[in-house]
Protein backbone atom coordinates (compact mmCIF):
# COMPACT_ATOMS: atom_id res chain seq x y z
CA UNK A 1 0.00 0.00 0.00
CA UNK A 2 1.21 3.46 -0.89
CA UNK A 3 0.13 6.81 0.48
CA UNK A 4 0.75 9.97 -1.50
CA UNK A 5 1.46 13.47 -0.28
CA UNK A 6 0.21 16.18 -2.63
CA UNK A 7 3.54 17.81 -3.48
CA UNK A 8 2.47 21.15 -4.88
CA UNK A 9 3.09 23.62 -2.06
CA UNK A 10 3.21 23.64 1.73
CA UNK A 11 4.48 21.45 4.57
CA UNK A 12 5.16 18.37 2.44
CA UNK A 13 8.33 16.87 3.96
CA UNK A 14 6.73 17.05 7.42
CA UNK A 15 3.98 14.63 6.32
CA UNK A 16 6.55 12.29 4.78
CA UNK A 17 8.34 12.15 8.11
CA UNK A 18 5.21 11.10 10.01
CA UNK A 19 4.12 8.57 7.36
CA UNK A 20 7.57 7.01 7.52
CA UNK A 21 7.18 6.79 11.31
CA UNK A 22 3.94 4.85 10.65
CA UNK A 23 5.95 2.40 8.57
CA UNK A 24 4.11 2.96 5.27
CA UNK A 25 5.52 3.77 1.85
CA UNK A 26 4.98 7.46 1.10
CA UNK A 27 5.32 8.94 -2.39
CA UNK A 28 5.05 12.48 -3.78
CA UNK A 29 1.98 13.20 -5.93
CA UNK A 30 2.46 15.95 -8.50
CA UNK A 31 0.55 14.57 -11.48
CA UNK A 32 -2.16 12.10 -12.51
CA UNK A 33 0.33 9.22 -12.99
CA UNK A 34 1.56 9.59 -9.40
CA UNK A 35 -2.02 9.77 -8.17
CA UNK A 36 -3.02 6.56 -9.93
CA UNK A 37 -0.59 4.55 -7.80
CA UNK A 38 -1.78 5.52 -4.31
CA UNK A 39 -4.55 4.29 -1.98
CA UNK A 40 -4.59 7.47 0.02
CA UNK A 41 -3.61 11.10 -0.46
CA UNK A 42 -2.68 13.79 2.05
CA UNK A 43 -3.31 17.43 1.19
CA UNK A 44 -0.81 19.28 3.40
CA UNK A 45 -1.03 22.63 5.07
CA UNK A 46 -0.09 25.55 2.87
CA UNK A 47 -2.03 28.33 1.17
CA UNK A 48 -5.40 26.99 0.02
CA UNK A 49 -5.67 29.60 -2.75
CA UNK A 50 -2.30 28.52 -4.18
CA UNK A 51 -2.81 24.76 -3.79
CA UNK A 52 -6.39 24.95 -5.15
CA UNK A 53 -5.25 26.76 -8.25
CA UNK A 54 -2.32 24.43 -8.89
CA UNK A 55 -4.39 21.25 -8.32
CA UNK A 56 -6.46 22.35 -11.30
CA UNK A 57 -3.43 23.30 -13.40
CA UNK A 58 -1.96 19.83 -12.72
CA UNK A 59 -5.23 18.16 -13.81
CA UNK A 60 -5.61 16.49 -10.39
CA UNK A 61 -8.96 17.94 -9.42
CA UNK A 62 -11.18 15.61 -11.48
CA UNK A 63 -9.44 12.31 -10.65
CA UNK A 64 -9.36 13.16 -6.92
CA UNK A 65 -13.10 13.92 -6.97
CA UNK A 66 -13.96 10.79 -8.95
CA UNK A 67 -11.84 8.39 -6.95
CA UNK A 68 -12.95 9.62 -3.55
CA UNK A 69 -16.57 9.33 -4.70
CA UNK A 70 -16.23 5.72 -5.91
CA UNK A 71 -14.20 4.89 -2.81
CA UNK A 72 -10.89 4.06 -4.51
CA UNK A 73 -9.00 6.84 -2.74
CA UNK A 74 -8.91 8.03 0.87
CA UNK A 75 -8.16 11.70 1.48
CA UNK A 76 -6.69 13.49 4.50
CA UNK A 77 -6.48 17.28 4.52
CA UNK A 78 -4.74 19.40 7.14
CA UNK A 79 -5.58 23.12 7.40
CA UNK A 80 -5.50 24.22 3.73
CA UNK A 81 -6.52 20.65 2.91
CA UNK A 82 -9.60 20.98 5.13
CA UNK A 83 -10.55 24.18 3.28
CA UNK A 84 -10.14 22.56 -0.14
CA UNK A 85 -12.20 19.49 0.85
CA UNK A 86 -15.20 21.54 2.08
CA UNK A 87 -18.39 22.00 0.05
CA UNK A 88 -18.58 25.62 1.13
CA UNK A 89 -15.79 28.05 2.05
CA UNK A 90 -16.31 31.30 3.93
CA UNK A 91 -13.87 34.21 3.59
CA UNK A 92 -12.21 32.76 0.52
CA UNK A 93 -11.35 34.66 -2.65
CA UNK A 94 -13.83 35.02 -5.53
CA UNK A 95 -14.11 31.77 -7.48
CA UNK A 96 -11.62 30.06 -5.19
CA UNK A 97 -11.00 26.63 -6.70
CA UNK A 98 -11.93 23.89 -4.20
CA UNK A 99 -12.59 20.16 -4.37
CA UNK A 100 -15.94 20.43 -2.53
CA UNK A 101 -16.11 16.86 -1.24
CA UNK A 102 -17.09 17.01 2.42
CA UNK A 103 -20.50 18.18 3.53
CA UNK A 104 -18.97 20.97 5.62
CA UNK A 105 -18.94 24.74 5.73
CA UNK A 106 -15.43 25.91 6.58
CA UNK A 107 -14.38 29.36 7.68
CA UNK A 108 -10.83 30.35 6.65
CA UNK A 109 -8.53 32.01 9.20
CA UNK A 110 -11.23 31.44 11.82
CA UNK A 111 -8.99 32.27 14.79
CA UNK A 112 -7.50 35.42 13.24
CA UNK A 113 -4.14 36.27 11.75
CA UNK A 114 -0.70 34.78 12.46
CA UNK A 115 -0.39 36.76 15.72
CA UNK A 116 -3.34 34.73 17.04
CA UNK A 117 -1.93 31.36 15.88
CA UNK A 118 -1.30 28.89 18.71
CA UNK A 119 -0.62 25.35 19.86
CA UNK A 120 -2.78 23.42 22.27
CA UNK A 121 -3.90 19.94 23.29
CA UNK A 122 -7.31 18.30 22.90
CA UNK A 123 -9.16 14.99 22.75
CA UNK A 124 -9.71 13.12 19.49
CA UNK A 125 -12.44 10.49 19.05
CA UNK A 126 -10.89 7.10 18.33
CA UNK A 127 -7.48 8.00 19.73
CA UNK A 128 -6.61 7.41 23.35
CA UNK A 129 -5.08 10.19 25.46
CA UNK A 130 -4.76 13.81 24.50
CA UNK A 131 -3.21 15.11 21.30
CA UNK A 132 -1.37 18.31 20.63
CA UNK A 133 -1.71 20.29 17.45
CA UNK A 134 -0.43 23.51 15.93
CA UNK A 135 -3.02 25.96 14.59
CA UNK A 136 -1.56 28.34 11.97
CA UNK A 137 -4.08 30.88 10.68
CA UNK A 138 -6.33 27.86 11.05
CA UNK A 139 -9.80 27.25 9.60
CA UNK A 140 -12.80 25.84 11.50
CA UNK A 141 -15.74 23.72 10.41
CA UNK A 142 -18.72 25.95 11.15
CA UNK A 143 -21.37 23.52 10.04
CA UNK A 144 -21.34 19.83 9.20
CA UNK A 145 -23.98 17.60 7.61
CA UNK A 146 -25.40 14.47 9.26
CA UNK A 147 -23.03 12.13 7.43
CA UNK A 148 -20.04 13.95 8.92
CA UNK A 149 -18.60 12.45 12.10
CA UNK A 150 -17.12 15.05 14.43
CA UNK A 151 -13.81 13.80 15.83
CA UNK A 152 -12.60 16.76 17.81
CA UNK A 153 -13.76 20.13 19.07
CA UNK A 154 -12.06 23.12 20.60
CA UNK A 155 -14.38 25.49 22.52
CA UNK A 156 -17.38 24.30 20.49
CA UNK A 157 -15.53 24.79 17.16
CA UNK A 158 -15.07 21.65 15.05
CA UNK A 159 -11.36 21.04 14.45
CA UNK A 160 -11.44 17.48 13.08
CA UNK A 161 -14.04 15.49 11.18
CA UNK A 162 -14.51 12.41 9.02
CA UNK A 163 -16.96 11.57 6.27
CA UNK A 164 -16.41 7.99 5.07
CA UNK A 165 -13.03 7.96 3.31
CA UNK A 166 -12.44 11.68 3.94
CA UNK A 167 -10.57 13.04 6.98
CA UNK A 168 -9.89 16.70 7.75
CA UNK A 169 -8.18 18.59 10.58
CA UNK A 170 -7.90 22.33 11.02
CA UNK A 171 -4.58 21.93 12.85
CA UNK A 172 -1.20 20.55 11.79
CA UNK A 173 -0.30 17.17 13.29
CA UNK A 174 2.65 17.28 10.86
CA UNK A 175 4.30 20.02 12.92
CA UNK A 176 4.55 17.63 15.87
CA UNK A 177 6.28 14.27 16.32
CA UNK A 178 2.96 12.58 17.14
CA UNK A 179 1.94 10.22 14.34
CA UNK A 180 -1.30 8.88 15.85
CA UNK A 181 -3.60 10.77 13.47
CA UNK A 182 -1.49 9.65 10.53
CA UNK A 183 -1.81 6.11 11.83
CA UNK A 184 -5.60 6.63 11.98
CA UNK A 185 -5.49 7.67 8.31
CA UNK A 186 -3.30 4.71 7.34
CA UNK A 187 -6.01 2.45 8.82
CA UNK A 188 -8.59 4.25 6.65
CA UNK A 189 -6.43 3.64 3.56
CA UNK A 190 -6.21 -0.09 4.30
CA UNK A 191 -9.91 -0.38 3.44
CA UNK A 192 -9.36 1.16 0.01
CA UNK A 193 -8.50 -0.94 -3.00
CA UNK A 194 -7.57 0.82 -6.19
CA UNK A 195 -6.97 -0.69 -9.61
CA UNK A 196 -3.33 0.31 -10.08
CA UNK A 197 -1.93 0.12 -6.57
Amino acid at each position, binding site marked *: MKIGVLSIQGA*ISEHFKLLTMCGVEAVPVKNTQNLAAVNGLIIPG*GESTTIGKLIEVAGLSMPIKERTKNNTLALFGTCAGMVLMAKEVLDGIDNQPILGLMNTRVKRNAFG*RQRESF*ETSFEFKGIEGSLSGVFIRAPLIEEAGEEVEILSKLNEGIIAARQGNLLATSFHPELTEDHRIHHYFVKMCENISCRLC
Partner: protein
Amino acid sequence: MKEQGTFRVKKGMAQMQKGGVIMDVTTVEQAQIAEKAGAVAVMALERVPADIRAAGGVARMADPVMIKTIMDTVTIPVMAKVRIGHFTEAQILEEIGVDYIDESEVLTPADEQYHINKHKFKVPFVCGARDLGEALRRISEGAAMIRTKGEPGTGNVVEAVRHMRKVMDQIRQVAGKSEDELVVMAKELGVSIEQLKEVKKEGRLPVVNFAAGGIASPADAALMMQLGSDGIFVGSGIFKAAKPQKVAEAIVKATMNYEDPKVLLEVSQGLGEAMPGLEMSTLTEADRMQERGI
Protein backbone atom coordinates in the same frame (compact mmCIF):
# COMPACT_ATOMS: atom_id res chain seq x y z
CA MET B 1 -4.44 26.02 27.22
CA LYS B 2 -3.65 27.99 24.08
CA GLU B 3 0.01 28.96 23.69
CA GLN B 4 0.56 31.78 21.21
CA GLY B 5 3.79 32.95 19.61
CA THR B 6 5.84 29.84 20.47
CA PHE B 7 8.83 29.20 18.23
CA ARG B 8 7.02 26.16 16.80
CA VAL B 9 4.04 28.34 15.84
CA LYS B 10 6.28 31.01 14.30
CA LYS B 11 8.49 28.55 12.44
CA GLY B 12 5.39 26.55 11.41
CA MET B 13 3.98 29.55 9.58
CA ALA B 14 7.09 29.60 7.34
CA GLN B 15 6.80 25.84 6.82
CA MET B 16 3.32 26.44 5.34
CA GLN B 17 4.88 28.79 2.77
CA LYS B 18 7.31 26.19 1.40
CA GLY B 19 7.34 25.65 -2.34
CA GLY B 20 5.57 28.97 -2.77
CA VAL B 21 6.26 32.44 -4.10
CA ILE B 22 6.06 35.59 -1.95
CA MET B 23 5.58 38.73 -4.02
CA ASP B 24 6.39 42.39 -3.33
CA VAL B 25 3.34 44.61 -3.89
CA THR B 26 2.86 48.36 -3.54
CA THR B 27 -0.87 48.74 -4.29
CA VAL B 28 -4.17 46.95 -3.71
CA GLU B 29 -4.36 46.10 -7.43
CA GLN B 30 -0.92 44.48 -7.35
CA ALA B 31 -1.86 42.50 -4.23
CA GLN B 32 -4.94 41.16 -6.02
CA ILE B 33 -2.88 40.19 -9.07
CA ALA B 34 -0.41 38.38 -6.80
CA GLU B 35 -3.14 36.48 -4.95
CA LYS B 36 -4.85 35.51 -8.19
CA ALA B 37 -1.56 34.32 -9.65
CA GLY B 38 -1.13 31.90 -6.73
CA ALA B 39 1.29 33.77 -4.44
CA VAL B 40 1.48 32.24 -0.94
CA ALA B 41 1.92 35.69 0.62
CA VAL B 42 2.52 39.30 -0.33
CA MET B 43 5.10 41.75 1.00
CA ALA B 44 3.45 45.17 1.37
CA LEU B 45 5.84 47.99 0.46
CA GLU B 46 5.66 51.61 -0.56
CA ARG B 47 8.31 51.04 -3.21
CA VAL B 48 9.82 47.91 -4.70
CA PRO B 49 13.59 47.56 -4.09
CA ALA B 50 14.50 48.78 -7.60
CA ASP B 51 12.70 52.06 -6.87
CA ILE B 52 14.17 52.33 -3.36
CA ARG B 53 17.56 52.01 -5.00
CA ALA B 54 16.71 54.68 -7.57
CA ALA B 55 15.18 57.08 -5.04
CA GLY B 56 18.07 57.05 -2.55
CA GLY B 57 17.64 58.71 0.86
CA VAL B 58 16.45 56.89 3.98
CA ALA B 59 14.05 54.00 3.36
CA ARG B 60 11.72 53.29 6.31
CA MET B 61 8.79 51.03 7.24
CA ALA B 62 5.78 51.57 4.94
CA ASP B 63 2.78 53.69 5.93
CA PRO B 64 0.56 51.55 8.23
CA VAL B 65 -2.55 52.71 6.34
CA MET B 66 -1.17 51.28 3.12
CA ILE B 67 -0.25 47.98 4.81
CA LYS B 68 -3.69 47.78 6.43
CA THR B 69 -5.46 48.39 3.12
CA ILE B 70 -3.60 45.47 1.58
CA MET B 71 -4.36 43.27 4.61
CA ASP B 72 -8.05 44.06 4.14
CA THR B 73 -7.89 43.21 0.44
CA VAL B 74 -6.26 39.78 0.26
CA THR B 75 -6.90 36.56 2.19
CA ILE B 76 -3.30 35.29 1.96
CA PRO B 77 -0.70 36.30 4.60
CA VAL B 78 0.72 39.82 4.44
CA MET B 79 4.32 40.57 5.33
CA ALA B 80 5.99 43.95 5.78
CA LYS B 81 9.52 45.21 6.24
CA VAL B 82 11.23 47.01 9.11
CA ARG B 83 14.70 48.51 9.25
CA ILE B 84 17.43 46.32 10.75
CA GLY B 85 17.45 46.87 14.53
CA HIS B 86 14.34 49.10 14.51
CA PHE B 87 12.30 47.26 17.12
CA THR B 88 9.76 50.07 17.41
CA GLU B 89 8.81 49.74 13.75
CA ALA B 90 8.38 46.03 14.50
CA GLN B 91 6.13 46.80 17.49
CA ILE B 92 3.97 48.92 15.19
CA LEU B 93 3.73 46.17 12.58
CA GLU B 94 2.84 43.61 15.26
CA GLU B 95 0.12 45.96 16.48
CA ILE B 96 -1.31 46.25 12.94
CA GLY B 97 -1.33 42.45 12.82
CA VAL B 98 0.92 41.67 9.83
CA ASP B 99 1.58 37.95 9.52
CA TYR B 100 5.35 38.15 9.14
CA ILE B 101 7.98 40.84 9.60
CA ASP B 102 11.00 41.09 7.32
CA GLU B 103 13.92 42.71 9.16
CA SER B 104 15.37 43.82 5.89
CA GLU B 105 18.59 45.20 4.47
CA VAL B 106 16.48 46.72 1.68
CA LEU B 107 15.56 49.49 4.11
CA THR B 108 18.17 51.78 5.65
CA PRO B 109 19.56 50.11 8.81
CA ALA B 110 18.57 51.76 12.10
CA ASP B 111 21.18 50.01 14.24
CA GLU B 112 24.67 49.13 13.06
CA GLN B 113 25.40 46.78 15.94
CA TYR B 114 22.23 45.02 17.06
CA HIS B 115 19.45 43.25 15.23
CA ILE B 116 15.97 43.14 16.79
CA ASN B 117 15.51 40.65 19.65
CA LYS B 118 12.89 38.71 17.75
CA HIS B 119 12.13 36.31 20.63
CA LYS B 120 10.14 39.11 22.25
CA PHE B 121 7.51 39.14 19.47
CA LYS B 122 4.53 36.90 18.78
CA VAL B 123 4.78 37.69 15.08
CA PRO B 124 7.44 35.65 13.27
CA PHE B 125 10.42 37.29 11.55
CA VAL B 126 12.32 36.54 8.38
CA CYS B 127 15.91 37.80 7.99
CA GLY B 128 18.43 37.82 5.16
CA ALA B 129 21.71 35.90 5.22
CA ARG B 130 24.68 35.43 2.92
CA ASP B 131 26.18 32.42 4.67
CA LEU B 132 25.58 29.87 7.42
CA GLY B 133 27.04 32.11 10.15
CA GLU B 134 24.67 34.99 9.36
CA ALA B 135 21.72 32.59 9.10
CA LEU B 136 22.39 30.94 12.48
CA ARG B 137 23.05 34.28 14.20
CA ARG B 138 19.68 35.56 12.99
CA ILE B 139 18.01 32.34 14.17
CA SER B 140 19.59 32.71 17.61
CA GLU B 141 18.06 36.21 17.74
CA GLY B 142 14.68 34.58 17.08
CA ALA B 143 14.27 34.59 13.28
CA ALA B 144 11.79 31.86 12.29
CA MET B 145 12.64 31.98 8.59
CA ILE B 146 15.76 32.80 6.58
CA ARG B 147 16.18 34.06 3.03
CA THR B 148 19.27 34.76 0.97
CA LYS B 149 20.07 38.44 0.76
CA GLY B 150 21.08 38.37 -2.88
CA GLU B 151 21.29 41.91 -4.18
CA PRO B 152 17.78 43.39 -4.04
CA GLY B 153 16.35 45.51 -6.81
CA THR B 154 18.90 44.46 -9.40
CA GLY B 155 16.98 41.75 -11.28
CA ASN B 156 20.35 39.96 -11.27
CA VAL B 157 20.29 36.52 -9.67
CA VAL B 158 24.07 36.13 -9.30
CA GLU B 159 24.29 37.21 -5.64
CA ALA B 160 21.33 35.06 -4.54
CA VAL B 161 23.05 32.10 -6.22
CA ARG B 162 26.31 32.92 -4.44
CA HIS B 163 24.55 33.08 -1.05
CA MET B 164 22.49 29.92 -1.51
CA ARG B 165 25.52 27.94 -2.72
CA LYS B 166 27.55 29.21 0.21
CA VAL B 167 24.93 28.17 2.81
CA MET B 168 24.49 24.74 1.18
CA ASP B 169 28.25 24.22 0.96
CA GLN B 170 28.72 25.11 4.62
CA ILE B 171 25.89 22.76 5.65
CA ARG B 172 27.68 19.93 3.82
CA GLN B 173 30.91 20.88 5.60
CA VAL B 174 29.15 20.73 8.96
CA ALA B 175 27.73 17.31 8.12
CA GLY B 176 31.23 15.98 7.48
CA LYS B 177 32.89 17.35 10.61
CA SER B 178 33.54 15.69 13.95
CA GLU B 179 32.34 17.33 17.14
CA ASP B 180 35.84 18.61 17.95
CA GLU B 181 36.06 20.25 14.55
CA LEU B 182 32.61 21.79 14.98
CA VAL B 183 33.86 23.62 18.09
CA VAL B 184 36.38 25.48 15.94
CA MET B 185 33.87 26.09 13.17
CA ALA B 186 31.36 27.49 15.69
CA LYS B 187 34.00 30.00 16.80
CA GLU B 188 34.82 30.96 13.22
CA LEU B 189 31.16 31.48 12.33
CA GLY B 190 30.27 33.25 15.58
CA VAL B 191 27.53 30.74 16.38
CA SER B 192 26.91 28.20 19.14
CA ILE B 193 28.08 24.62 18.99
CA GLU B 194 24.50 23.48 19.76
CA GLN B 195 23.29 25.17 16.58
CA LEU B 196 25.94 23.43 14.48
CA LYS B 197 25.08 20.08 16.07
CA GLU B 198 21.46 20.63 15.08
CA VAL B 199 22.47 21.48 11.50
CA LYS B 200 24.61 18.33 11.43
CA LYS B 201 21.74 16.18 12.71
CA GLU B 202 19.10 17.55 10.31
CA GLY B 203 21.39 18.17 7.33
CA ARG B 204 19.73 21.55 6.81
CA LEU B 205 19.04 24.90 8.43
CA PRO B 206 16.73 24.57 11.46
CA VAL B 207 14.18 26.89 9.79
CA VAL B 208 12.80 27.36 6.28
CA ASN B 209 15.24 28.98 3.85
CA PHE B 210 13.91 30.98 0.88
CA ALA B 211 15.74 32.67 -1.99
CA ALA B 212 15.53 36.43 -2.43
CA GLY B 213 17.36 39.34 -3.99
CA GLY B 214 17.48 39.49 -7.79
CA ILE B 215 15.03 36.80 -8.91
CA ALA B 216 13.31 38.12 -12.05
CA SER B 217 12.27 35.19 -14.26
CA PRO B 218 10.68 31.72 -13.97
CA ALA B 219 14.08 30.24 -14.82
CA ASP B 220 15.69 32.20 -11.97
CA ALA B 221 13.09 30.82 -9.55
CA ALA B 222 13.60 27.23 -10.74
CA LEU B 223 17.39 27.69 -10.51
CA MET B 224 17.15 28.74 -6.88
CA MET B 225 14.80 25.84 -6.10
CA GLN B 226 17.21 23.36 -7.70
CA LEU B 227 20.02 24.83 -5.60
CA GLY B 228 18.02 23.92 -2.48
CA SER B 229 15.73 26.88 -1.69
CA ASP B 230 12.50 26.09 0.14
CA GLY B 231 10.66 28.85 -1.77
CA ILE B 232 11.00 32.18 -3.53
CA PHE B 233 10.68 35.90 -2.82
CA VAL B 234 10.22 38.06 -5.90
CA GLY B 235 10.63 41.78 -5.41
CA SER B 236 10.91 44.08 -8.37
CA GLY B 237 10.88 41.23 -10.91
CA ILE B 238 7.10 41.05 -11.28
CA PHE B 239 5.75 44.58 -11.26
CA LYS B 240 8.76 46.01 -13.11
CA ALA B 241 8.08 43.58 -15.97
CA ALA B 242 5.94 44.47 -19.00
CA LYS B 243 3.29 41.81 -18.22
CA PRO B 244 3.13 41.42 -14.42
CA GLN B 245 0.17 39.00 -14.28
CA LYS B 246 1.78 36.64 -16.76
CA VAL B 247 5.21 36.79 -15.10
CA ALA B 248 3.63 36.22 -11.66
CA GLU B 249 1.76 33.11 -12.82
CA ALA B 250 4.82 31.83 -14.67
CA ILE B 251 7.06 32.17 -11.60
CA VAL B 252 4.48 30.33 -9.43
CA LYS B 253 4.31 27.44 -11.91
CA ALA B 254 8.09 27.35 -12.34
CA THR B 255 8.58 27.19 -8.57
CA MET B 256 6.23 24.23 -8.27
CA ASN B 257 7.67 22.40 -11.30
CA TYR B 258 11.27 23.44 -10.85
CA GLU B 259 12.62 20.07 -11.92
CA ASP B 260 10.49 19.77 -15.08
CA PRO B 261 12.14 21.48 -18.10
CA LYS B 262 8.98 20.93 -20.19
CA VAL B 263 6.93 23.11 -17.84
CA LEU B 264 9.78 25.61 -17.48
CA LEU B 265 9.93 26.00 -21.27
CA GLU B 266 6.19 26.43 -21.51
CA VAL B 267 5.97 29.12 -18.82
CA SER B 268 9.07 31.00 -20.00
CA GLN B 269 7.51 31.90 -23.36
CA GLY B 270 5.81 35.14 -24.31
CA LEU B 271 6.46 36.96 -21.06
CA GLY B 272 7.28 40.26 -22.75
CA GLU B 273 10.08 42.49 -21.60
CA ALA B 274 11.59 41.61 -18.21
CA MET B 275 12.82 44.21 -15.74
CA PRO B 276 16.02 45.80 -17.12
CA GLY B 277 18.35 44.73 -14.31
CA LEU B 278 21.76 45.84 -13.09
CA GLU B 279 25.22 44.35 -13.56
CA MET B 280 27.01 43.95 -10.19
CA SER B 281 30.20 45.73 -11.30
CA THR B 282 28.19 48.93 -11.86
CA LEU B 283 27.29 49.06 -8.14
CA THR B 284 29.51 51.02 -5.80
CA GLU B 285 30.30 49.77 -2.30
CA ALA B 286 27.58 52.04 -0.91
CA ASP B 287 25.01 50.65 -3.39
CA ARG B 288 25.39 47.11 -2.08
CA MET B 289 22.53 46.35 0.32
CA GLN B 290 23.81 42.89 1.22
CA GLU B 291 26.64 44.24 3.41
CA ARG B 292 24.04 45.70 5.78
CA GLY B 293 23.41 43.87 9.06
CA ILE B 294 25.77 40.92 9.12
